[in-house]
């Protein structure tokens, strides 16, 4: 029986579909791109050179601005790391829910994904911070982390689901045949293998989340963007402040993208 089904499936699939993969992070440099003047190198070192140049030749106001920012960078990372950790937990359970045969669990997880993906993150932030304040006051930092984690948890859930489903069915069958429960099979056999598929897209989500975390500056969270805004509104140096902010974000995301691509190479090599 299995043979028949497999054959049919092969026939149905026909020619391979071309998938267009548009990440929402900075372009991840591929290893084949070995030239000295790759887009990544030009952007990364260019941005660093710009900042150094401005700081050296126009210390006023650029050094002032740079001094203003480290607190903000720290807060941006704090929001990003906390959000991604909670998003991973939410994503794991959502992904498991989405492949569950239990209709209630599956339905709940699917509904969560559909609803959250249909509402802009900025609206979700407003909703938790301002709208819900009618019933309960959530502190600004907590609002930010909750909104980001709930939002990214939905996307993370899809990554977990795809990662788990990428493991051949025979693995679970072998585990179950040895007497393992579904949970033991998931924990000892499926998830450890799925991690390899899951890690690179999770890395991309991390970079995307870091950029989206600039949205929390509209709450009273003093992240990188908000610190820049504070400086600008005091000194009226809008052009200078936002130029530095943009360059700093660029350097951080390019750096992280590079780390992820290195990690991806390592996983592939194993």
């Amino acid at each position, binding site marked *: 029986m299995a*043979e028949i089904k497999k054959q049919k499936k092969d026939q149905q699939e026909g020619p391979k579909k071309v998938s267009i993969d548009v990440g929402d992070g900075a372009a991840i440099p591929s290893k084949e791109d070995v030239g000295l003047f790759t887009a990544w190198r030009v952007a990364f070192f260019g941005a660093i050179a710009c900042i150094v140049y401005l700081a050296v030749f126009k210390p006023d106001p650029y050094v002032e601005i740079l001094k203003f920012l480290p607190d903000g960078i720290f807060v941006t990372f704090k929001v990003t790391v906390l959000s991604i950790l909670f998003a991973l937990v939410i994503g794991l359970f959502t992904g498991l829910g989405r492949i569950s045969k239990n209709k209630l669990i599956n339905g709940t997880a699917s509904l969560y994904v559909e609803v959250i993906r249909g509402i802009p993150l900025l609206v979700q932030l407003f909703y938790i911070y301002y709208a819900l304040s009618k019933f309960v006051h959530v502190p600004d930092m907590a609002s930010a982390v909750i909104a980001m984690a709930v939002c990214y948890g939905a996307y993370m859930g899809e990554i977990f689901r795809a990662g788990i489903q990428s493991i051949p069915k025979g693995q679970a069958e072998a585990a*179950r045949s040895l007497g*393992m429960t579904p949970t033991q099979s998931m924990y000892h056999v499926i998830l450890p293998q799925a991690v390899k598929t899951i890690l690179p897209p999770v890395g991309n989500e991390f970079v995307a989340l870091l950029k989206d975390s600039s949205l929390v500056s509209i709450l009273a969270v003093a992240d990188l963007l908000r610190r820049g805004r504070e400086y600008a509104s005091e000194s009226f140096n809008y052009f200078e402040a936002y130029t530095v902010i943009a360059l700093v974000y660029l350097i951080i995301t390019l750096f992280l993208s590079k780390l992820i691509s290195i990690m991806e190479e390592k996983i592939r090599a194993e």
Partner: protein
Amino acid sequence: MQNDLRRKMVEMKNVSKYFGMLKALDDVSLDVYEGEKVVIIGPSGSGKSTLLRSVNKLEEINSGSIIVDGLEINDPKTNINKVREEVGMVFQQFNVFPHKTVLENLTLAQVVVRKRPKKEAEQVAMDLLAKVGITDKAHVYPTKLSGGQQQRVAIARALAMQPKLMLFDEPTSALDPEMIGEVLDVMVKLAREGMTMIVVTHEMGFAREVADRVIFMDFGRILEEGSPEHFFKAPTNERAQQFMRQIL
């Protein structure tokens, strides 16, 4: 009949199973006794793999009953995991765990399911690796092994649970011809030790060597059963004659 005095390891009664409109198993009844070696043959799509997979409930049946080692496996009160602990399964595609070393493949279920101390599990594993002849690969990842070696690891992994019954689902069909022998040798050894075995295979040489009974299936039904010699000489069913001509 002398068979009736022996204990039944598997008792299938009037089992039917559908895949949509397709009748994969059509009112099949089959008893397998303790220590018996049953070989199931038949063309692809005949329902033989489905039959085998329904014995440890990898396929759920639509009607009928299957009693394994005294337990009705389709009874909701039966803990299927307890039944599976006693029923080893070997797959066509090996299904070794690629993220675990050979040794870990053998110890995982012993520790997690049987709750054996790690030391003891490793001892059991090493003894079994010696038995299947790959002691030197204990700390290697299975992706580095040949198909024949992987299948031997898979057999050892199932045996590590000390099952009462072993199911083999076309264990040599995915192997290069020169590796079939090494896997069959292990299976023959196992059969000689008295293991109860149900084997779906086209290897008639193996059937002749160890099988107590050969079962021919087609259209989801058991069309004929008898000794290996019976099938070599003169199967009565026309489909069985045709099939034997093709594979010999």
